[in-house]
């Protein structure tokens, strides 16, 4: 797609604002007491949902680039990845501040008893270096290793799904939906990888 520099800036700002919208809406619902009987749970789950959605979107951009044979989807990859991290951070903060009441005692008592929370923490930990090295400067500095480091996102994608699947009591339809999306996105890369291997052999 050919747009002027100015148009791209406009498009980027619009996408940024659109991606940010869930946040003020949740803040508003919290202030207006519109989160239902279990407000922390509502807040916590919606932030987790948004983190997962943005993770899926950011992982969809490379396949989209290949399918369309156009480079523009990559322009949004960093922003989408950072939004995934933004919502994941809020999701994490709600757990630490509101659920555990910032108590180390509660953390030690409850977290080891909850495998899905351990996996969630791991997911968040793995996502952190990716967010920190997302700048252009870091990309240049790390060179080839930047790409290697950012392959961690594949593990993040898988562990995020396990985190979700593991907390559900019986109806796993929603986590399964995300599992299907994630499998498609990661499977695409796997197929591409094997194709490359084959052409190399030939």
């Amino acid at each position, binding site marked *: 797609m050919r747009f002027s520099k100015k148009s791209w800036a406009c498009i980027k700002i619009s996408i940024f604002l659109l991606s940010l919208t869930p946040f003020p809406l949740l803040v508003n619902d919290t202030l207006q007491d519109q989160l239902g009987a279990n407000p*922390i749970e509502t807040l916590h789950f919606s932030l987790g949902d948004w983190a997962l959605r943005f993770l899926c979107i950011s992982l969809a951009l490379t396949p989209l680039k290949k399918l369309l044979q156009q480079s523009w989807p990559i322009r949004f990859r960093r922003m989408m990845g950072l939004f995934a991290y933004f919502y994941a951070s809020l999701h994490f903060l709600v757990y630490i501040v509101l659920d555990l009441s910032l108590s180390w005692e509660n953390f030690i008592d*409850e977290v080891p008893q909850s495998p899905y929370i351990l996996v969630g923490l791991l997911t968040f930990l793995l996502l952190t270096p990716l967010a920190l090295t997302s700048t252009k400067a870091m990309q240049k500095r790390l060179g080839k290793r930047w790409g290697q480091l950012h392959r961690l996102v594949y593990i993040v994608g898988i562990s995020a799904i396990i985190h979700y699947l593991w907390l559900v*009591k*019986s109806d796993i339809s929603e986590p399964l939906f995300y599992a299907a999306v994630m499998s498609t996105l990661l499977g695409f890369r796997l197929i591409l990888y094997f194709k490359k291997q084959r052409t190399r052999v030939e």
Partner: protein
Amino acid sequence: MLIKEKPSILSSEITDKAIFQNRRKIIKAAAGLSIASLLPSIASAEQAKKYAAVPSGPYSANLQVTSIEDAANYTNYYEFSTNKKDSTVLAQPLKTNPWTITVEGEAEKTGEFNLEDILKNNPLEERISRFRCVEAWSMVVPWIGFPLGAMLQQFKPTAKAKFVEFTTMYNPEVMIGQRGKSLDWPYVEALRIDEAMHPLAFMATGMYDEDLPKQNGAPLRLVVPWKYGFKSIKAIVKIRFSETMPATAWNKMAAGEYGFYANVNPDVPHPRWSQSRERILGASIFTPKRKTELFNGYGEQVASLYTGMDLKKYF
């Protein structure tokens, strides 16, 4: 052009239904009785809740009650939906009147009973109790109903009756959640006979001085306050006395996660999460979770049911 038509009758001119229905009383009062007797009857006509006059029972707890908005819009009723809010809407088509309960098994008086007849023999009382869900949240509900044991005695269980099993209605046409496989339908729960006869075990037909909302298990549900909420089965259509331990719904689904006893116990975590604290429904987001108590705080009354039993093994 926009033409605004005035409604011929203003809504403010229409007699309030409650006052209208009270018309006879007003006429009677005006005809013979003193004016003073008229005043309270108008006042009570404003907001007469169906069970406002039901007395508080001996086991009612002195706890701060959860708002009805929270208690009635946060229900686990997988027969309709696995979403706690959706069941509020989806449960409404359920027809709860008339309602028949089948009594089977090790008892002298078995057969089909109308709920109306059961209610005639079981005077209502109010019972405020804390309800603790296995998902680590709790609420305090003012139930209306009667002790379970007193009702069960009326069916004259025999010496062979070691357990009581309850079954929820199975009707996938209305209970659309039953079309899926979120649980093995119909929902079944059970108690040991001594647990069922304990005065704290309760049959609820109402809450907050009104009939039970459909999403909360109308017209008849169990309330076992010292056990996790999934034991408190909703919309009961069958009661069976048995000699052997019945297979129960959540236990069949995941035996390692949901035991038959399901006594509230902060020291026995669910395999996937802690049970040491619980979130209080309706509390502000900065209210810390409450520490969960053994037997949900009813240990003094019920602990003797489990003397000598390893609560970690029989969770």
